[in-house]
């Protein structure tokens, strides 16, 4: 399955993208490749550039420098060829407030030739959405579900979710995760989602990119990421005021004789560096995605 993903052409290909808002650099010479198939998680703190990046993918912002290709096309020059194949849910979940849900569904359907009526109905029922309800009267959770329905019902090749779970209760978050899983269960579909809720990313993402200060710090498969990052606790023969720098470590905390290192992948290097200065490994454990993220951006 992995081979077939890497062999086909990427869904999103971004090269050297720079974006400034006035003096503020939002994206700084950013390059990113999202392969076809699977779930791609884009993680970063507030203001890291996630939303700006996503707006370029959707053709809502034009590249000032560099290039953006989606399905091999420029989304600004060819919105018809790209947007019709993308389902999108934004953090704000902008929906026309004056419409009733049934109207929203009919209105959105008109834009998408691939609209799947029975799937839309199935989603509406499972989300418990009332056709007659006005959008502006919907609760936060129901509003997110409505947004999800219109993003999914044309069975897009690429589903883009910008902070989909932001501010939502666990029940609605389950629906969103379920929708992501159902989407990629259809062979060849791709989900790109940004989130700062890293436990969700860890559950569903095949690949992860960490974005920080408008640059991609790291792209890896979830598997590689988990295998390469470990927490290693070393015990030294004598108490130390500060921990020695060791090759392969990202950061360290501790006191006295025991210090814990976050390791960046060169685990064997760290082990031999520790052995060389007479320290013994007393504990070793995998890191959560939260811990990996923090050790990478601090």
């Amino acid at each position, binding site marked *: *399955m992995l081979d077939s993903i890497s062999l086909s052409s990427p869904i999103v290909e971004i090269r050297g993208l720079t974006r400034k808002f006035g003096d503020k650099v939002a994206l700084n010479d950013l390059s990113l490749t999202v392969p076809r198939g*699977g*779930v791609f998680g884009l993680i970063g703190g507030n203001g890291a550039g996630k939303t700006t990046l996503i707006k370029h993918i959707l053709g809502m912002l034009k590249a000032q420098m560099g290039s953006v290709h989606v399905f091999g096309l420029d989304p600004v020059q060819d919105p018809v060829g790209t947007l019709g194949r993308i389902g999108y849910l934004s953090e704000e979940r902008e929906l026309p407030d004056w419409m009733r849900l049934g109207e929203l569904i009919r209105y959105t359907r008109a834009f998408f030739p691939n609209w799947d009526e029975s799937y839309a109905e199935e989603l509406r029922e499972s989300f418990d959405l009332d056709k007659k309800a006005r959008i502006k009267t919907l609760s936060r959770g129901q509003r997110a579900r409505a947004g999800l329905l219109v993003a999914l019902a044309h069975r897009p090749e690429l589903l883009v979710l910008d902070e989909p779970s932001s501010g939502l209760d666990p029940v609605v978050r*389950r629906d969103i*995760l*379920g929708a992501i*899983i*159902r989407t*990629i*269960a259809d062979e060849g579909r791709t989900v790109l989602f940004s989130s700062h809720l*890293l*436990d969700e990313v*860890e*559950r*569903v*993402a*095949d690949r992860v990119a960490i974005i920080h200060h408008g640059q991609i710090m790291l792209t890896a498969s*979830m*598997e590689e990421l*988990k*295998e390469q990052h470990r*927490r290693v606790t070393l015990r030294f023969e004598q108490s130390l005021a500060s921990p020695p720098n060791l090759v392969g470590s990202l950061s360290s905390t501790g006191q006295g004789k025991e210090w814990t290192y976050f390791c960046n992948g060169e685990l064997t290097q760290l082990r031999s560096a520790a052995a060389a200065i007479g320290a013994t490994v007393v504990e070793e*454990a*995998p*890191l*959560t*995605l939260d*811990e990996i993220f923090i050790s990478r951006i601090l």
Partner: protein
Amino acid sequence: MQIHITTSDGVPIYQQVVNQIKFLISSGRLNSGDELPPIRVLAAQLLINPNTVARAYRELETAGIVEKRRTAGTYVSEQGSPLARRERVKILAERIDTLLAEANQMGVSIDDVMKLVQKRHEAFQSARNEE
């Protein structure tokens, strides 16, 4: 099949699935010939990536614990038992390690621990006989 996924201790999710299925087999809650849920069904139930479930099933298959049949399902294999025995010993060893560490902390000698284990065993037996 009850599996619980947590992302709070860093253990890779596929590993959690593997460990828990092994545990279910070792503890007799899954038996030889039982069918595991299809990949998509388990993924939707646990809210995890289907590829992660596929990886866990592959791992279990390589270890000979489950087998794919022509009918496309995945089943607990017949040879599950010797492996399961090893797994049982491993699970118990981990629990015993925790017990020993705590006993050591509390300054309880190994002889007293053994006596206590024997005593709890007898209490357990008599409670079972009353049932």
